[in-house]
């Protein structure tokens, strides 16, 4: 008996939810329509809120800009610039900021940020200052929104919904633009230093000198080899004097690299004379077991050049006693 009852109950119970489901579906259908209209409406309101916001910021421009410049000075940011410069810069940043909010495109702002960075980096403006002023502007504008809409909390909320993502994105754009510009400058300078670090100089027909100053790291060693072998080819050199007086120490990979460079130069038909080996470097070369028969070494640069001249068949003759300069 009991199971039957249960069954009955079941059918009864199952019949009712079906109706519910049907109801639910209806509800869901109308609900999704609602959602669609709501999103659309929200998009519209976001746009209109932004428009309202921009109008507000344009209206308050003079006052907010001044407030911002005051805060920058107070926070001791941009100390490298004068008050007038800060104010002028603040004006254009402000206008670009509002424009980015209005159009929603950041290309113009990005270009402006790069341009600004180019101008202020040489004056010693730091990353934290740039980030600091952009965040200050964000706060100044947010405060002004609070002040204007504090009576209508819902409206304030919606305005902030529109403002905050855009403002954060602007802050990120300016900061990233600044850092990228800095990195570009650093890369350029590194390149310049690298190029300056291994000069190849011709002293005489067929005679090159390569003075090296500072620590040789693997990358510099590679570059040195390249410059030396290329120099031999372009100058048709027979003898190269590699002066390492200015090198404090070398490790064994670099020492091996130097030895290989000397051998490669021989394959190009040139002799390398290494001069100015410090006691430490001599020790390293002996420790790694360099075949000294292959290395042509002379004590100092002068001796190296004299040896090179001898190899090339030059003979330096003193024509007369040096003439004293008379006034």
């Amino acid at each position, binding site marked *: 008996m009991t199971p039957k009852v249960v069954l009955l109950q079941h059918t009864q119970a199952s019949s009712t939810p079906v109706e519910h489901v049907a109801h639910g579906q209806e509800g869901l259908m109308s609900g999704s329509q609602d959602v669609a209209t709501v999103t659309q409406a929200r998009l519209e309101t976001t746009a209109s809120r932004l428009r309202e916001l921009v109008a507000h910021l344009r209206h308050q421009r003079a006052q907010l800009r001044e407030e911002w410049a005051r805060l920058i000075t107070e926070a001791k940011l941009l100390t490298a610039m004068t008050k007038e410069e800060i104010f002028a810069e603040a004006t254009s940043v402000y206008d670009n900021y509002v424009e980015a909010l209005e159009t929603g495109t950041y290309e113009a702002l990005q270009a402006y940020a790069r341009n600004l960075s180019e101008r202020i980096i040489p004056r010693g403006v730091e990353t934290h200052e740039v980030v600091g002023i952009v965040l200050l502007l964000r706060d100044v504008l947010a405060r002004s929104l609070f002040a204007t809409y504090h009576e209508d909390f819902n409206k304030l909320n919606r305005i902030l919904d529109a403002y905050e993502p855009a403002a954060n994105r602007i802050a990120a754009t300016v900061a990233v633009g600044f850092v990228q510009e800095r990195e570009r400058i650093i890369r350029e300078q590194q390149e310049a230093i690298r190029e300056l670090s291994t000069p190849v100089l011709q002293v005489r027909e067929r005679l090159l000198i390569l003075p090296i100053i500072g620590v040789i790291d693997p990358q510099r060693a590679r570059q040195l*080899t*390249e410059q030396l*072998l*290329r120099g*031999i*080819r372009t100058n*048709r050199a027979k003898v190269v004097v590699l002066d390492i007086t200015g090198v404090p120490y070398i490790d064994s990979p670099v020492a091996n690299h130097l030895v*290989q*460079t000397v*051998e*490669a*130069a*021989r*394959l*190009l*038909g*040139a002799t390398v004379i290494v001069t100015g080996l410090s006691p430490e470097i001599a020790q390293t070369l002996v420790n790694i077991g360099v075949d000294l028969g292959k290395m042509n070494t002379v004590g100092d640069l002068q001796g190296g050049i004299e040896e090179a001249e001898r190899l090339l068949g030059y003979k330096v003759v003193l024509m007369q006693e040096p003439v004293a300069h008379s006034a």
Partner: protein
Amino acid sequence: MQVPILKQGAYLIATVQSALTDEDLKQLRDTLVLQVSKVRARGVIVDVTALDVIDSFATRTLRDVAYMIRLRGAETVIVGIQPEVAFSMVKLGLTLEGVATSLDLEEGLAYLDRKGKGHEQEVRTHR
């Protein structure tokens, strides 16, 4: 690919035109060693400007050529090794020990001329 061998005065000049197989290299070696006495050459120049790669077999063959030709009474000079090739050879430990090398054909000729002059002077002083 056969390597053309030209006679220029007292010298033989072999100019490698393109990458060589091991067979080509052996043939070059045999031809040079044979020719050097036939034409009574005093020097041999092997120009490898066109080679992008010089491997261990090529290095050994070039060294063999130089040693064999010395035994046949002439001098050999390898010319035109590219800077990059030179450095990768050295990295592999291929240093052409005991073989004369020059920057290019002109330098190679100058090298052989100098060697020859020394020889002539020696002969003169002996008289």
